[in-house]
């Protein structure tokens, strides 16, 4: 079965689904927290325009979950991270 990992938990997906579609299919409506108001956000526009659904995929931040196809084994994290290239994220 196809799976990605979201914050360490396995999440199944159907081949062809974006990361956002896989999250929504699993019943997740929110996965990001806003910077100032600390409000929950998930998918809103679904077509890459609103940037509400941002996640980090395979260590690369700022990825629109609604655009990136799920790939078996991909690692998704929902907390804001910056890859420093210095041996770790912060």
């Amino acid at each position, binding site marked *: 079965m196809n799976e990605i990992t979201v914050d360490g938990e396995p999440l199944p997906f159907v081949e062809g689904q974006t990361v956002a*579609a896989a999250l929504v299919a699993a019943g997740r409506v929110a996965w990001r927290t806003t910077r100032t108001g600390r409000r929950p956000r998930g998918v809103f526009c679904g077509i890459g325009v609103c940037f509400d659904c941002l996640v980090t995929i395979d260590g690369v931040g700022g990825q629109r979950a609604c655009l990136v196809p799920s790939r078996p084994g991909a690692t998704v994290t929902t907390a804001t991270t910056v890859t420093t290239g210095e041996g770790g994220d912060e």
Partner: protein
Amino acid sequence: MSEPADLVVVGAGPAGAAAAVTALAGGLRVALVDSGTAVGGQYWRHPPEHARAAIPTEDLHHGLREYRALCAALEEGRAAGRLDLRTAHHVWSAVREDGGFAVHAVDRREAPRETAVVLRAPGLLVATGAHDRQLPFPGWDLPGVLTVGGLQALLKGGGVAAGSRVALGGTGPFLLPVAAGLAARGVEVVAVCEAADPRAWLRHPGALLRNPGKWAEGAGYAAALVRHRVRVRPRTAIVAAEGDDRVTSVRIASLAPDGSPRPGTERRVEVDAVGVGWGFAPQLDLFLPLGCELADSADGNAVVAVDAGQRTTVPGLYAAGEACGVGGAALAAAEGRLAGESVLADSGAAPAPGRRRTARTARTAAVRAAVDRQRAFARAMGLAHPIPPAWSSWLTDDTVVCRCEEVTAGAVRAACADGGAHDHRQVKQLTRAGMGWCQGRMCGPAVHCLVARERAYVPAERLVATPVTLGALADLDEQPPEPADHSEDRQ
């Protein structure tokens, strides 16, 4: 394709695909670029080719015969080595260069990895479509509230329904196919709130009578909705969404003619998802930095000004589809064909074998007539589904207007009252509304309506049309920065 292209087409929706097919048929070499994983754009959004068996979506589509014909023609062009199809390529800038154009994109086929790519051609055709126009209302930033386009994209692209009890609201015919699609997937569509008064259409009978195809499409959705017992409620709106960490209910009200809620008509409906949309905002990002002239359209948007052959005011630059005025897929495809014909005529391409020049002229005239007819329909649609004048009365001062920077309606109002701001760009400078990740794509039309409703909405110029990593950009830099040596340079 190894030889350089004659034409770059940005956007592989109905307009861009039709334009590319027309240009290919005329013998040109075409590079067709799209950010999606498949040809079709938003209207014919599909899962990637290899996944279509796992995610069946055919029943959600309209006009698939034309889609398949376009795909087949593109495939033919590819096999002949004249089409360079670039899906999952995101264009961040298009600039004039040596009498032609350089289109800068990032190749994201291996996302999240991205690589900078530059496509060059003497001609450029931009068909970047539109996205749902949003009007903020209390609770619209709760998880579970989506754009109607977002609900549709999840359904058509991923086979996923974002809820099981859904209310839709806003204005425009697009609410109907989304409601029908959700219902077809077993979703309980508890309300379709159409703010407009359907009688507004009666003021434009000509536009309706001359476009029977639109009637048929609309009637099809209406029949589907009846079948699923979904009622469209005219002159109503979702005026608030409620819930703690996600939406659990909406408040629906009947609207007075000016769009203000009629007192005493509000009622609460439990839902687990909401879809909202107020028509569409054309995607003009690539046009504005190139200096295209704009024109007003009937729906409150500024659009790219084009001549009868879809030529913009910038030589060599053509536009087709929603960027020239929101009008739906059929109009977009017709404009694409027209633009393709203009590219052929302007480039002096010989007619394709077996085709005579007079045949091309006759064909072009027929397409132009179809475009004119459908534009009249689009204009009537824009006038019949306006943004309710009193929409802003639904907003409380703490309603978030800019979702990215979390700027409230109160802050926007203060920027106008105290700061003297009289357009959305000034509001941005004073409040940060529109300065976040989406660069005002979501809140721009709304801020504009709060500040300068009487004018057409011209989006802020965005020199970077989509985010691109600095690493990918740095790799574009041909000369690496030289080591610093400033001992003599400094005065």
